[in-house]
């Protein structure tokens, strides 16, 4: 099979997966116990008003009508309006997704730079105290719930020492600004340090451990001996030969990890009061705000599915031995 065929086949699969996810989400929220109307309607409203509001949201239509309308709307990227705030879901995604991406990608880059570097050294210095220390650190990072770590960091450095901001992306009352002006402000960087460190500490363990294992495998191969026989310096062997070859599994795993990372920031956003998509998702689920919950879940699913797709393609590009059969 050629590369084009592979691409087309995978794209079709991607479409079907997305449809399945969208349908599952539709069913899931409607099967959950609970009535969204009780969140829409204030107890102070009269029954007539209540009925009028329910009708305006289409909630009194039969389920299949709601489903057909939902799929039709999805195809035109119309994700509906929030039951709670009446805001267009697509506008909410445009507002909150960049905030999540900037936090998550920064943490991701930091985690992978540190994780890969430490992974190389850990593999190289196998059996030393250094290895033990890094492996334990990585395992702790992966095992300790990141929200708990977040609360701890906020408590010590925010509440007790007062050296990090307690909440949000900017200082209170700092005024209107566009997204990029905010991102490049010192105030924003100050707010980002703590959540990035906490997230990066969590993300870091994954590339570190994969890189270490991959290094160990690579180091046992014959060409490393050949490099030594050629008289190359240890430093050159470690970075230019062993690490480069060991990097492949880390990179493909990274693509998938990025997909999951969008969802992974949910708790951190809640703890640090970061106005991102994850925080909104939690609120939407708690309130049975179907349109918002569906929209945010779809974004998460889309990121995982697309990054899986990218990982498949990356494999082929990075490793010539991979075929598309």
């Amino acid at each position: 099979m050629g590369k084009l065929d592979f691409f087309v086949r995978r794209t079709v699969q991607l479409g079907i997966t997305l449809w399945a996810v969208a349908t599952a989400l539709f069913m899931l929220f409607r099967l959950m116990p609970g009535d969204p109307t009780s969140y829409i309607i204030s107890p102070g409203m009269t029954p007539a008003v209540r009925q009028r509001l329910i009708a305006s949201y289409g909630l009194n239509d039969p389920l299949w009508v709601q489903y057909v309308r939902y799929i039709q709307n999805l195809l035109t990227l119309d994700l509906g309006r929030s039951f709670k705030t009446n805001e267009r879901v697509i506008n909410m995604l445009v507002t909150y997704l960049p905030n999540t991406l900037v936090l998550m990608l920064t943490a991701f880059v930091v985690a992978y730079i540190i994780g890969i570097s430490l992974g190389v050294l850990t593999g190289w210095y196998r059996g030393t105290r250094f290895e033990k220390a890094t492996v334990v650190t990585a395992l702790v990072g992966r095992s300790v719930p990141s929200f708990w770590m977040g609360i701890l960091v906020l408590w010590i450095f925010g509440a007790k020492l007062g050296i990090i901001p307690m909440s949000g992306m900017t200082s209170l009352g700092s005024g209107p600004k566009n997204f990029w002006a905010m991102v490049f402000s010192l105030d924003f960087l100050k707010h980002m340090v703590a959540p990035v460190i906490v997230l990066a500490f969590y993300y870091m363990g994954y590339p570190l451990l994969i890189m270490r294992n991959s290094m160990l495998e690579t180091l046992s191969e014959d060409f490393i001996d050949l490099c030594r026989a050629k008289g190359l310096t240890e430093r050159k062997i470690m970075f230019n030969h062993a690490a480069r070859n060991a990097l492949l599994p880390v990179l493909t795993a990274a693509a998938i990890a990025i997909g999951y990372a969008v969802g992974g920031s949910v708790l951190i956003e809640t703890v640090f009061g970061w106005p991102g998509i994850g925080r909104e998702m939690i609120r939407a689920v708690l309130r049975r705000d179907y349109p918002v919950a569906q929209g945010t879940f779809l974004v998460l699913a889309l990121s995982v599915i697309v990054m899986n797709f990218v990982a498949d393609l990356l494999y082929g590009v990075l490793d010539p031995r991979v075929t598309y059969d």
Partner: protein
Amino acid sequence: MTTATGVGGMAALAGCSGSNDDNGGGGGSGGDKLPQYTYLNNPANYNPARHDAINLVGDQLKKVGLDTKVQVFEWGTLYTKITEEFNFSFATWSRGLGIDPGRRMPEQFHSSNTGKGQGNFTGYTNKDLDPKLMEQLQMKDEQKRIDTLFDIQKTINEDVPMHPIVQMPNIVAYNKNQVSGWTDHIAGYFHFEPMTNIEVNNSKKELRGSWAETLGTLSVLGYNNETKLIHQFEMLYDKLVRINSKLEADPKLSLATEWERPDNKTVKYKIREGHKWHDGEDLTPEDVKFTLEYIKKNEIPLYSTQWEMYDSVSVDGQWVTVNFKDPVGPVHKLFSNQIPIVPKHKWESRSNPAKANITEPVGSGPLQFDYWDKGSELSLKKYEDHWRPVKFNRRIWRIIPESSTVWSLLKKGTLNYLPYTRIGKQLNDNQDASNIGVKSAPGDGWWHFSQNTRQKGLDDKAVRQAAVNAIPKKAINEQILYGFATEGWNLVGESFGKFSNPDVKKYQPDDGVKAGKQSLKDAGYVIDGDGMAHFPK
């Protein structure tokens, strides 16, 4: 409840001849056991204090002899089960009566309103009470209306379909180094009068608060009555008549400087001269006429109670005349202070106002739009040209979901007031900090103890009275609500001043369980050896 009274009366006679003692040792002579009752509870994380209180009341009900099972349901399910399926015996959540104590009475207690999704979910019917519930809304004479409301309170207190467990206060916590001058108001400290009275002392004269959720919209005609938005619109828009802290219509606070009532179905308002919208355009009587006609024409759901009241609106010079369909009693509480006046030049081109996307609202109130960083912060700034200006420069609200963070920032002075101060551990633990002030005033809200009068046993007011006797109000207030609330006795609490009937019966003065058992026995019910109540034979 004539039937129930009859049953109760006969049962009382039967009780006299019974041989039961206080310890329930007698048994034997009763009829069938009362059915098992369900008390629906919200999950602990939804409202922890209320969850605990319901468990406590459930235990007490058992001690009285009512076999009660407390069941936890997610809030949406619970609400549907109670208000639509009537699948409950006892229910508790928060309610508020609003500025006028009689406005919601027909909704909650009128016999015609017991259908699915309607307000009278307890199924309480009392044909003698129905006319009074309606008449009080149309009584212009205040004393006559008070007398009728007293009568209603007495009857409902006797029949107890819904009983207050505690009256919830309005509470605001603030940094007392920075904010002062709070005025108590039954509607809350966010209300127009308290907000224009408070003084802020920090370098930028900013009032800084926080709330937990995003706002979503700034459309005053397209929101769902969420409190966090009521707080904004209260200050962004003017209303024809404002109700002050003494519960009186006050022209000093209102858009109308004078008003007249030529008859029971007509009200005339003289609109303030020289006032301008936030964008500099003149605010005219035409804007008022437009607003009233516009919300009626577009059937704006939120204001339907109001637009269904009037037929036509006309303008004559500076005066606006509103003609109502039926006589209206406390017109300013029911109507004039409910509708925000919006600018004609901004809204007339909008064909679907309830769905309009408003991100920079233009109003005429003492605060005007400054900026809205969606998902993070809203800032309103002082409108210098208002006749009743605020005494600070800006009011900023930041979204912070985590309450310990909020309290930490309040103590540091980064925030200086909490518009949604919740009664709980954080408030109790932090209230004594040197720079924290807590203001608490009686409010319009209460936790109701509602009984489904459709159920066997609960269709008899003697059983309902026994249940009400069992509520451990003191323990709930002191142990769960840290003493911030007050025990509830009357549907219309003392916070409503002259509207609250001081002579209603107070249940459970000392030992609620004993009193509850006694009221069952007086009605002929029999407590068996296991302490469970049986119907009279």
